[in-house]
């Protein structure tokens, strides 16, 4: 576990979020994310995991506590360090796949030739080179999500934040995208924080599962998933995987009973 000895890339310390209507989405949330790791935030709906992700992204400000960026990464501006994948593909319907993926580069005024090269490379990585000129409307749900991931990766972010990206997809597509995501994560050496309410998905993907409890949202427990990568179909059907899932399910159940709501 050399990973745990690394200095964290970012740390949330005592982060709380109260909305103006009085709802406390988060309270006393402590979380460290280390460079290069794949961490899953697992919890029931309403436990504030999406809110935590938005706070990390800077889309929402915490009302208590702080978000610390550590190490050399501090010198870089936040927007160039983060890629965000939403629950929906969130593409611009009026333009092509290519232009959708190129958007972050255009917004940062990257020269057209360089941008084109990077867009083509990332489209190739998600397997959509042939669809560069298609419109989002013409693609399937899974392909749209691939475009969304390509757009998040095109800036080569240090940290990829994913908010239940595959929740709306069918199981076959989800498994395929899980595998592809792991492959991309390994070759890109980026850091991923992945929000999900699926025990199976969290265990399959991540090295560390952070189980959250609701009302108010907080970290309930952490589980290490000490299975080596690359993980594939063999892992998905292994007894080891089943055991990890059982433990994660039990922890999740405890987290839900801890909040006193059935």
């Amino acid at each position, binding site marked *: 576990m050399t990973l745990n000895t690394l200095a964290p890339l970012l740390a949330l310390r005592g982060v709380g979020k109260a909305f103006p209507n009085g709802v406390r989405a988060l309270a006393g949330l402590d979380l460290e994310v280390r460079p290069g790791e794949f961490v899953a935030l697992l919890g029931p709906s309403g436990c504030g995991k999406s809110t935590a992700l938005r706070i990390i992204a*800077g889309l929402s400000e915490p009302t208590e506590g702080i978000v610390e960026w550590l190490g050399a990464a501090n010198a870089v501006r936040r*927007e160039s360090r983060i890629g965000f994948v939403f629950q929906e593909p969130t593409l611009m319907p009026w333009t092509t796949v290519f232009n959708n993926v190129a958007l972050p580069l255009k917004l940062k005024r990257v020269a057209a030739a360089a941008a084109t090269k990077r867009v083509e490379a990332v489209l190739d990585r998600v397997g959509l080179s042939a669809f560069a000129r298609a419109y989002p409307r013409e693609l399937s749900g899974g392909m749209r999500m691939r475009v969304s991931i390509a757009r998040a990766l095109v800036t080569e972010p240090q940290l990829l934040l994913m908010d239940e990206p595959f929740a709306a997809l069918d199981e076959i597509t989800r498994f395929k995208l899980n595998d592809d995501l792991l492959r991309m994560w390994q070759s890109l050496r980026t850091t991923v924080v992945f929000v999900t309410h699926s025990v199976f998905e969290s265990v399959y993907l991540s090295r560390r599962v952070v189980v959250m409890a609701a009302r108010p949202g907080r970290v309930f427990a952490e589980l290490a998933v000490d299975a080596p990568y690359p993980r594939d179909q063999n892992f998905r059907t292994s007894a080891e995987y089943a055991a990890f899932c059982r433990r994660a399910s039990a922890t999740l159940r405890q987290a839900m009973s801890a909040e006193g709501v059935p």
Partner: protein
Amino acid sequence: MSDLRPLSAHSRESGNPVPTNEQKAGPPLARGPASNLDRTLRLALPVVVLALGLAIWELVVRIENIPPYVLPAPGAILRTLVADWALLSQSLVVTLITTFEGFALAAVGGVGLAVLFNQSRVVEYSLYPYAVILQVTPVVAIAPLLLIYLPQHAAVLVCAWIVAFFPVLANTTLGLHSVDRNLADLFSLYGVSRGQALWRLKLPSALPYILGGLRIAGGLSLIGAVVAEIAAGSAGAGAGLAYRIVESGYRLNIPRMFAALLLLSLAGIVIFYVLTLINYLALRRWHESALAVQR
């Protein structure tokens, strides 16, 4: 184009009550003949009604021996249209130019004001009530005043603009507020300037609404031009179709009144369909409203 839209509604009713994906995607073989019949009826029935109406009109005028200064027969109107074509076509061009200028001003003014309102709340709060007042005050009542203070051509243009700009303003405002929230978040994640957000996100999101507003504005700018021409009552070379109608009324040249009216409505139809076509071409690849047509 627009005749295809209700067609899909029809096939939905007549088709399998629970259509599967394959049925939706595949060629509508089973529905083919019904759809063709439907389309033929849709085109043929209005033509039949028109022919019947004209025939009855012509017959009544002939049998009752109604003089043309009371009610001209369709044939007489057509003959007048041909005989007076030089005069009427000149007037048509005048009216169309006014309409087009008024429409262009309404498009630029409506979209421009909406963008300004969107960027500055102070400007929006200060000016929006007056935009509404301009809209609800009947333009027929404003026209005579405008003609006192402005040169005639300018007054006619302002009338066309007043009538046409509000739907563009209202629709564009609605469109600029209808941006997908996640997309807006994505833009702020990349730290964009207001200008970039407007150009790359808000305006494209608003495009279907803007085009909808323009489609209404096209017809309204013709109405505005006609109202202003009637109020102005100018004569000579610069006289538009509406003036021809008034003038022919004074001279009891009823067939020419009808001929001019016919040209005005044809102009309105052409404007509507041209704008519908532009709307379709701009949106066909991505927007639901235009995609429904292809199915």
